[in-house]
């Protein structure tokens, strides 16, 4: 589902060159739950964004479900992101002026997507938020926010979920709930790539990759 081959990325800030990624290879197949862990600054987020088609790497190749996002025109890339991938962020990134249901349905405005209210309500029900559809993000707890974000990521029935520290702001219980949903998604044939330094994540993952200074330094199958 996701093939990342030899990607590298460096940042130049005030004359200082930061090698965030140096030749990283990762593949995530359908039904796989892969976690990338590493210290802060090891390049986890950079890897995730590069793999998603949102941040063009300096070198290497990314293939999502047979398509190379960086070789596509803007519209086609948007279409690929809309139909194949779903994002979950550490900071949730819910839209503050939309209520719970609209935060899920906002996904239907993306390229090539359809408006399906029933699908939105079904996901909200699944994540136990049926009572909160009219509430705004500011009125939700962090765990609830992350569940809304997860519902939004799943709305378009993507094949690949990319999550950046999805449990970073959650307590133990909520972390387990979210990770449970992600592994369920993988069990149903989806591909999941999570970057996290949370050790709990490895309990749910099928494969753990260790990143250090932009390089893969270890990989173990659980």
């Amino acid at each position: 589902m996701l093939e990342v081959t030899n990607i590298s990325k460096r940042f130049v800030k005030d004359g200082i060159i930061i090698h965030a990624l140096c030749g990283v290879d990762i593949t995530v197949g359908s039904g796989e739950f892969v976690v990338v862990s590493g210290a802060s600054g090891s390049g986890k987020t950079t890897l995730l964004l590069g793999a998603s088609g949102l941040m063009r790497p300096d070198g290497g190749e990314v293939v999502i479900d047979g398509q190379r996002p960086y070789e596509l025109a803007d519209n086609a890339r948007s279409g690929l992101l809309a139909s194949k991938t779903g994002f979950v962020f550490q900071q949730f990134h819910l839209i503050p002026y939309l209520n719970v249901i609209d935060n899920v349905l906002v996904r239907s405005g993306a390229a090539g997507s359809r408006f399906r209210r029933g699908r939105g309500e079904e996901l909200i029900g699944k994540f136990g938020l049926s009572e909160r559809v009219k509430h705004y993000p500011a009125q939700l707890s962090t765990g609830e926010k992350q569940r809304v974000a997860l519902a939004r990521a799943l709305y378009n029935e993507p094949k690949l979920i990319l999550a950046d520290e999805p449990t970073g702001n959650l307590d133990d219980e909520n972390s387990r709930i979210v990770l449970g949903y992600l592994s369920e998604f993988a069990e149903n044939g989806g591909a999941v790539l999570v970057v996290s330094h949370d050790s709990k994540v490895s309990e749910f993952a099928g494969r753990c990759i260790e990143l250090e200074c932009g390089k893969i330094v270890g990989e173990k199958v659980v």
Partner: protein
Amino acid sequence: MNIRRLVFKEIAYRKVNFALSVVCVAVAVASVVGAMVVLKGHDVRTGEILAAKGAETEKQMKALDGDVARSMLKLGFNVVVLPKDQNLGDWYADDFGAKYMPEEYVERLANSKIMTVRHLLPSLQQKLVWPETKRTIILIGTRGEVPNIHKSAKKPLIEPVAWGTIVVGYELHQSLELKADETVTLLGREFTIAKCHGERGNKDDITLWIHLGQAQEMLDKEGKISAILALECACAWADIAKVRQEICGLLPETQVVEKGSQAIARAETRKRVAEEATAAMEREKQFRGNLKRGRENFASVLVCVVIAACAFIVGALAYGNVRSRRWEVGVLRSMGYRSKQILGLFLSKAALTGVLGGLGGIVIGIASGVAGFGYLEGNGGETIGVSELFAGSYESWMILFVSIIVITPVFSAVASWIPSVAAVRQDPADILCTEGV
């Protein structure tokens, strides 16, 4: 979920920011519309003032015209037609002429339509020494009335002197002890005295009047006269210069001397009043013109300052809004929104700001312009009515309003364009790493 819904939701969420932008656009538009209303009001009021002044002047002139016409008819004015070669200095000094013109001129003048002349008195005059008494006299031959074919003659002004009779001036009949019905000899001819005049204190006292025909014979001036006295003339113009010009056109080789009369003075008053009224009108026009220029200058400066300030505020607000929503751009991109859609999200909000601000500004502009005009004119708050404002220039107002409704959205979209494009162009990853709710 379409972009329109997102725009409305965001506006509802950030009401103050949006309201502030709309108010700014509205203030800018209102300053333009308000200035136009005041200037238009100025034009309307100027028209009214000038029309009222004009009507008043006209009324005044009509009253004076009537007055003049009445006095012209009642009093008339007198002119003396003299041969062109008559030296006027001599004529004024001696009060009689020594040059001659054809007698037929009298008929010509009588039959013309130049003016209504009640009495036309041709005369032949000569200063001579009365050989029989050795006295210096003025001999005047008169013919009395010449009938005017345009106006039936009324009672003759001066009784004609019959053939063979003579009228004697005061000094002459006093010193020579002459009496009516006596017979006197003049240049060898016998005359019966028809009348002895009372004292007049002028050259009439040494004048002898005889019949014109007899005078022509005696002085060997057949068919000649030396002056035509036109008494109680009346004409529509009450303008002596014009009368003079017309007579000289009709009777070549003549000159016209006016003998002052009351009617002339009145005509002159009328002329002065007319001139004064025209000058007053001109002064008012100039005053209103200067006022308008002042108002235009003030308005253009005010409008420029207001528009610049509002453009700055709208731009700053748009920039702030887009900047604070940069991460939103990243999130929408990560969900598969196209950059054009995201640009549309920001620009359609800006355009909506423009439309609402434009509409609001038109209403506020008209209201404040109308109120402001009343204040500026300072006549007890009496201002210009909206219907008065639109009367006659409905179309140009509509063009203005439509252009405002077209221009303001474009204008505010342009103000948002730069920050929006910058945000959309930015790598979403940059934003997503750092910001969020």
